[in-house]
């Protein structure tokens, strides 16, 4: 792949579309096991990202991701704001200075993003958080050393669905203990939208 700033913008645009379309759904997932604001938070953040990206020019992928990261961090709030913000900020640091990002660097960027989320959230895989989507996606991409749209989407989707069976031990859902089982983790669903959007961007390019 040759991932450019234009593709990075396209990714954020498609991600925004999915978040806005599913705003109420995301909030209803959060209502079941959290406080019901996840869709509202994410929609507010991505709306601001689109505003920012639409009003500026970007030469490098790193610039798009950094701008998106800082915007999400200052607009989303809650638990998901710092986490998605950190993820994109780590990605931007990993590709700094490169006009075209290849598969290997892209995979490294995703690895750094995952490490950033884990560190910020003090959480690991299996705690019913967005890490349960990020970790398997990163693992799969790492094995293949390539970012292939179909694999990306499928991995993210099945990982997202698998969060249903997990008992939450981090985030607000942890207050429910056993009762958190049987519900999807909202942050994992929005992470899935992020990866599904990335898959669409990559398909459009190919």
């Amino acid at each position: 792949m040759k991932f450019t700033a234009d593709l990075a913008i396209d990714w954020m645009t498609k991600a925004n579309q999915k978040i806005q379309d599913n705003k109420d759904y995301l909030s209803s997932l959060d209502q079941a096991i959290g406080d019901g604001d996840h869709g509202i938070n994410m929609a507010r953040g991505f709306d601001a990202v689109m505003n920012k990206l639409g009003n500026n020019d970007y030469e490098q992928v790193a610039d798009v991701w950094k701008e998106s990261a800082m915007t999400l961090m200052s607009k989303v709030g809650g638990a998901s704001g710092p986490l998605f913000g950190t993820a994109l900020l780590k990605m931007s640091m990993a590709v700094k200075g490169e006009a075209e990002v290849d598969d290997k660097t892209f995979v490294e960027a995703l690895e750094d993003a995952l490490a950033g989320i884990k560190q910020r959230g003090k959480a690991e895989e299996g705690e019913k958080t967005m890490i349960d989507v990020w970790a398997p996606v990163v693992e799969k991409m790492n094995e293949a050393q390539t970012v292939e749209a179909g694999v990306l989407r499928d991995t993210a989707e099945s990982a997202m669905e698998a969060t249903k069976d997990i008992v939450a031990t981090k985030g607000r859902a942890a207050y429910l203990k056993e009762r958190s089982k049987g519900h999807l983790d909202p942050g994992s669903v929005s992470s899935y939208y992020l990866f599904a959007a990335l898959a669409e961007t990559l398909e459009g390019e190919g």
Partner: protein
Amino acid sequence: MKKIINDPNQVVTEMLDGVVAAYPDQIKRIPDTTVVTKKDAPVQNKVGIVSGGGSGHEPAHAGYIGKGMLDAAVAGEVFTSPTPDQVFEAIKAVDGGSGVLLVIKNYSGDVMNFEMAAEMAEAEGIDVAQVIVKDDVAIEERDGRRGVAGTIFVHKIAGAKAEAGASLEEVKAAAEKVIANVRSMGVALTPCIMPASGKPGFELDDDEMEIGIGIHGEPGTERKPLGSADDIAAELMDHILADMELAESDDVAVMVNGMGATPEMELQLVNRKVQAILQEKGINTHKTFVGEYMTSLEMAGCSVTLLKLDADMKELLDSPTTAPAF
């Protein structure tokens, strides 16, 4: 949804305008932020105290700004932690050269956003310390406990300590001492409705109550038929006392906090029973607070908080403050 609002998306900023307009001599807003500070911030050579969190808990947190309490309060969206850049603005605004204490309630969002702000401040050479309030005994494991109404006592005692000229380390220690000695538990009779979604956060039947509810409608320990004021008070006290080491003739401060839609009359009924239980055990009530201190929009219900006091804490609790909500 039936609410007195204009635009659901402007509730927080319009609320802050209202607060500043109500106390123009005491409180100001940092332009283009959701941060309100003491009018005379920063106070030179005094540790600054910053608190904050999601909105919907009024009078928390802006109402606790004043001499002897908070220097700044950061308001997030309704029930959503404020973002690091806003908290950072607050830190910068109240740093008078002696450092800043952040009072954080124990929710993953709040902890992360405030921590990031602290990192930003440290990078600019500002001394920052943090304490995390976790007083809600509805959660068994101590580290997972939510920060609820007990936070107000942390504001008061840390604020008084800072006012007395203590160092950042000393102010932090005073706050930690409150955190170690404060316990709360709540009950809900009806849910609350977030303006942006227009929907109740959870559902409760007409004849039901939820014991151990959080201030964002997080689930409690038990859902059961609505009890009498005495029963409710006794049940909350059972949980709280089981988690505290209180001996005869110990001193406590009591807070009976309304969640937003419960009349003071009912809160006093709860207080009556709380005091009776304390008296029976020979525990001395040093001071009582009954009213709305940490609400949850229009939730009906209340929480009970006990703070075990020593001589130092009594003095700090009793010292004057100009904060409008205390």
